[in-house]
């Protein structure tokens, strides 16, 4: 029955271009300020919290925005629980009974910590977003799948590791990731640094699919254009801050690239806002030295960004794209002579 419901919903609501720009006419400042005003609220009474967040707003997208903003700015990521959960899920991955027992144990722990400390890991964010939305009569689903980051062994991603949300607004499904919008792993202290990233709200599904792959492929919202799991695994690494700068990543399409000496590679992106040449930087690391390059921009027309780079020496390079101070993406290039 659930399956039929989803199929029906996809037929009605499938839109591969569903993204934040559909709501350019909406001013989210009121929703954001309501979320801020509810900062002291706890999670012990979800119906009242949902009412306080949404009752003075007039559109579903604003109501959802207030809930989303509250979730992103009030829940904190529990690094200890995250690390323990990752370790045990990996340990029990071929032992379904132990995995189930661990999941039951961690679930209790998660809900206790949520109410008491408002601390959680990604399923907790996705769960609270869904529950608060349901209370405001907004259909919101938790989507489980694969999330690729620079610190997860991308070649050995053997089980789902991440949860995010899809929300139905004006008969269209949209995607958002409240966990990644609200924190970044700090590589120095192994803890989480709070930093809200606005680009994870109603993201362009094509861009989202570069580092999010749902277990149920339908939830890419891309229909026939959905990438295969194999091409997802081969995609470049994009970082949280890419969502602050880009709405689309076009080329290079792969993380590992094999090219010949003197071959020119095209880099192409869609930007959230125009930038000048001085803000764009490539850092090219050959394992010994890292050099910074300011590529010559070919085009910034219509907020698109296109530039070329020619590799003149053979070798193996990690290539990082920076926009301003934000690390956006990484590729590797094996250059043959």
């Amino acid at each position, binding site marked *: 029955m659930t399956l039929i419901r989803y199929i029906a919903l996809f037929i009605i609501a499938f839109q591969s271009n569903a993204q934040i720009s559909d709501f350019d006419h909406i001013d989210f400042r009121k929703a954001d300020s309501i979320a801020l005003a509810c900062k002291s609220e706890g999670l012990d009474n979800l119906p009242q919290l949902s*009412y306080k967040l949404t009752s003075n707003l007039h559109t579903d997208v604003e109501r959802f925005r207030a809930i989303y903003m509250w979730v992103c700015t009030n829940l904190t990521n529990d690094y200890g629980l995250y690390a323990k959960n990752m370790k045990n899920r990996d340990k029990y991955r071929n032992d379904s009974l132990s995995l189930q027992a661990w999941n039951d144990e961690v679930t209790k722990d998660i809900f206790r910590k949520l109410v008491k400390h408002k601390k959680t890991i990604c399923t907790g964010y996705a769960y609270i977003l869904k529950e608060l939305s349901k209370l405001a009569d907004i259909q919101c689903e938790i989507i489980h799948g694969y999330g690729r*980051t620079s610190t997860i062994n991308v070649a050995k991603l053997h089980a789902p590791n991440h949860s995010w949300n899809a929300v139905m607004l004006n008969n269209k499904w949209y995607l958002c990731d409240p966990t990644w919008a609200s924190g970044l792993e700090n590589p120095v202290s192994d803890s989480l640094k709070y930093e809200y990233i606005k680009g994870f709200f109603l993201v362009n599904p094509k861009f989202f699919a570069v580092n999010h792959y749902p277990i149920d492929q339908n939830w890419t919202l891309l229909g026939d254009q959905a990438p295969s799991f194999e091409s997802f695994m081969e995609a470049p690494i994009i970082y949280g801050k890419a969502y602050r700068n880009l709405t689309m990543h076009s080329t290079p399409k792969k993380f590992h690239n094999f090219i010949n000496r003197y071959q020119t590679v095209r880099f192409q992106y869609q930007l959230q806002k125009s930038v000048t040449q001085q803000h764009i930087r490539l850092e090219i690391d050959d394992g010994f030295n890292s050099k910074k390059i300011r590529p010559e921009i070919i085009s910034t027309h219509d907020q698109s960004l296109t530039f070329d780079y020619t590799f003149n020496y053979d070798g193996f390079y990690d290539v990082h794209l920076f926009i301003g101070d934000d690390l956006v993406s990484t590729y590797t290039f094996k250059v043959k002579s």
Partner: protein
Amino acid sequence: MKTQFNFPMKSFGLIAMMMIAILAYNPMYAQTQTTATSTQSNQEVTVKGTVNDENGPLLGASITLKNSKIGTVSDENGAFTFPKALQPGDVLVFSFLGYEMKEIKIQKNTSFLKVVLETDIVEILGALESNKPYKSKRSN
């Protein structure tokens, strides 16, 4: 001495008509009031009940009138008395973090609700976004 009392017939007629009108209105008013009271007492109900899970009473489950701030929480016996009289058609939302939310529509004869909340089955996953630059492992 003769007291002069000049009361025009016109005014007398007016007062008489007003008195008749008041007398006539009074029973009508009482009737309307009686009807209103009986309708109210027929339709509004005070709802009590208990909230449990499979292991017994749930302390601290929230019970809220849908789309309002009005609500209460269950005590250590899982018991509650809803603070506002409810009308048929009102919807109560029963929620407790980690349990599936339940909505119950108040019927004409609803006065006691025995609610069992079921544990929400949630697969717990968590990947963290990172701004740590990727670094290839090199054999040389």
